[in-house]
């Protein structure tokens, strides 16, 4: 009895509170992840989906994926490129907008609210809109570029292997701005006004206050935004599926779209699961790096 009492002292009680959520996670999140790993080590195709005995093939699926053709390596690089480029642009523009709307001026709040729109529109809808806008002959983007005299012939944005990726990145960039903007804007409000006031009294200019006060105090927010942004962008699926379906010629094939294609178009369930696991492992590593950041900050 004494032991139990001791056990439930203070923060240990927290375990009880966390237990329901934890069990939920094990059942609805842990199990699918586990099952997906098992699936990727078996040979499950259209022929064996319904049979009770499924061959264990070790790492064969992974080896096949890497050696059979270069689609996996292409989609791996595509995904990384897509993510990094999206994040850089989203972050810079989101940061700039956050600083801008942090100033007090008329309509700042309603306009900031309007800028949230891209985040609220379902991805598939955004995908369709951009698909129309990037269309070669009737697309708005070619029309604008032509009217401004920047181009003389229509560009086949989504039909050429070299321009499809930039087009998709642009669409995702547009979607991601509000996410970056809002989180950074929130971070900005947590910086005490007094710091800026005393800096002003000391005669610091705008650039100095930004570099010495805003940036250091925003560091934790910025890390969170970047890591969360990385995770969200790395697993984007619907936008690309709608706009290009991974084409033309795999030039926009991402790990997510490739995994779907293997599983539900070509019926190679195990290989699809293997690709999903590669995606999972990469994100898991990124998350660990994030945790490392959080810890070192806590200890400082």
């Amino acid at each position, binding site marked *: 009895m004494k032991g139990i009492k001791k056990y439930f002292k203070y923060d240990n009680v927290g375990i009880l509170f966390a237990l329901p*959520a934890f069990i939920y996670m094990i059942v609805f999140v842990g199990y699918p992840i586990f099952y997906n790993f098992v699936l990727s080590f078996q040979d499950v195709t259209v022929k064996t989906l319904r049979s009770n005995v499924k061959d264990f093939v070790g790492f064969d699926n992974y080896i096949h994926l890497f050696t059979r053709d270069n689609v996996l390596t292409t989609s791996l690089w595509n995904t990384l490129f897509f993510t990094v480029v999206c994040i850089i642009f989203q972050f810079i523009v989101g940061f700039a907008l956050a600083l801008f709307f942090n100033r007090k001026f008329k309509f700042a709040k309603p306009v900031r609210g309007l800028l949230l729109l891209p985040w609220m529109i379902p991805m598939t809808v955004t995908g369709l809109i951009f698909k129309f806008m990037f269309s*070669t002959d009737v697309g708005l983007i070619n029309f604008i570029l032509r009217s401004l005299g920047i181009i003389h012939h229509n560009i086949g944005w989504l*039909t050429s*292997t070299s321009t499809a990726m930039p087009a998709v990145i642009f669409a995702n960039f547009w979607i991601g701005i509000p996410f970056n903007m809002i989180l950074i804007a929130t971070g900005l409000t947590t910086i005490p006004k007094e710091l800026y006031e005393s800096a002003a009294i000391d005669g610091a200019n705008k650039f100095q206050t930004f570099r010495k006060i805003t940036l250091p105090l925003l560091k934790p927010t910025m890390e969170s935004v970047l890591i969360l942004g990385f995770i969200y962008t790395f697993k984007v699926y619907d936008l690309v599926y709608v706009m290009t379906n991974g084409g033309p010629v795999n030039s926009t094939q991402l790990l997510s779209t490739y995994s779907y294609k293997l599983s539900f178009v070509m019926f190679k369930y195990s290989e699809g699961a293997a690709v999903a696991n590669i995606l999972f492992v990469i994100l*898991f590593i990124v998350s660990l790096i994030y945790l490392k950041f959080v810890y070192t900050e806590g200890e400082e």
Partner: protein
Amino acid sequence: MKKVISMLIVLTMLATLFVGCSSKKSETPASSENGTDATPTTVQSADATESPTDVASTASGDVTIWYYWETEGHQKALNQLVQEYNDSQSNIKVEAKYVPFADFKKQLSIGASANELPDLIIQDNPDTASYAQMGIFADLTGKFDVSTYYPGPVNSCTLDGKLYGVPFGSNDLLLYYNKDMLDKAGCKVPTTWDELLETAKKCTTDTVSGFAHSSVQNEEGTFNFLTWVWSAGATAYDINSEGGIKALTMVKNLVDSGAMTKEAINWTQGDTMNQFISGNLAMMINGTWQVPTMREQAPDLNWGVAAIPMDKQQASGLGGENYSVISGGNEAAAIEFMKYATQKEQCLFMMNAMGYISSDSTIAKDQFSGDDVYQAFVDEMQYANARGPLAEWPEVSDAISLAFNEVMTDASSPEDAAAKAQTTIDGIVK
């Protein structure tokens, strides 16, 4: 403790990765939205024995059908057929559910592993072999008479000598041409590849593209592209042959000369038809099923159909759907409904509403007498090649569609693309 909490947070973030996968499992296909099939889902009560209409058959219960036609007219026709069947007897209650084509394979795969399948499905004919291989179809050999059906469609339902489906209806591809545009350019309807290239070039203007066929990197694109391969005397399994390379080169020439719009790699067959009736295309390859829509939406457009321009031999692609009964479902009742739906009157009703050709030769024979356009499609049926049947057809199809997409986007030469596709295909078909 902090570590545990942090781990939970990480798991939560990662969880979003898999949420999509897990939630879809519970997702059942939406009931069709036409509102005509507000059938109660309760099981038919046992008083069915009182029914005087039912003497021979002992089949009863509910039958659920999955289908993927997105055209409203097609959905209405099927719902009407189902309604009439439900009214005609009281033992069997049929309900049709629409599952989007893009989700159809996924839903069936998930349904197969979770044992949540409908009783009857109407599916794309090249996929029938794959699903049959999955073991979800009942063997219909000896249970349904297909002796009067065309051999092509029946072949697509057959795997290892067993019948796993009944052809619903067929369609094939032809060249559609805009008469006014061809007249203006002073061209006749092309019959050979060279003529097609010439005519398409002449018809191409600033706003009009001379020619196109759906070239998306999936089954639809493969379906259209293969007509070139077959015409050049090759098959889908030997792309790296004289004929296969010739077909790829033909498409390359069409695209490079500007006669065929590159945009077609993003066009479904429906998109291609829309471009045609909007006057942006002078010629296209498309299927039988577009005729009703085109007649309804563009009654003033002056168009005609002709055989697809050929190289060595005349060739077209065979499309269409098959009925298949799910094994372990309400098999007897599903077969009963299928027998009803394939009778002459009911079959003709569906075929005409959908612009399909009946797969039953006795019905197709005089299905379209007096209608030149449809008659051309019926005549073309003898040149129509089937895809598969092969369980791994989706993989073969993917290799082929990748090849012509590579060529159309200048990513590789016809020879390289053909060689690469052949390696993939040889790896699948040994």
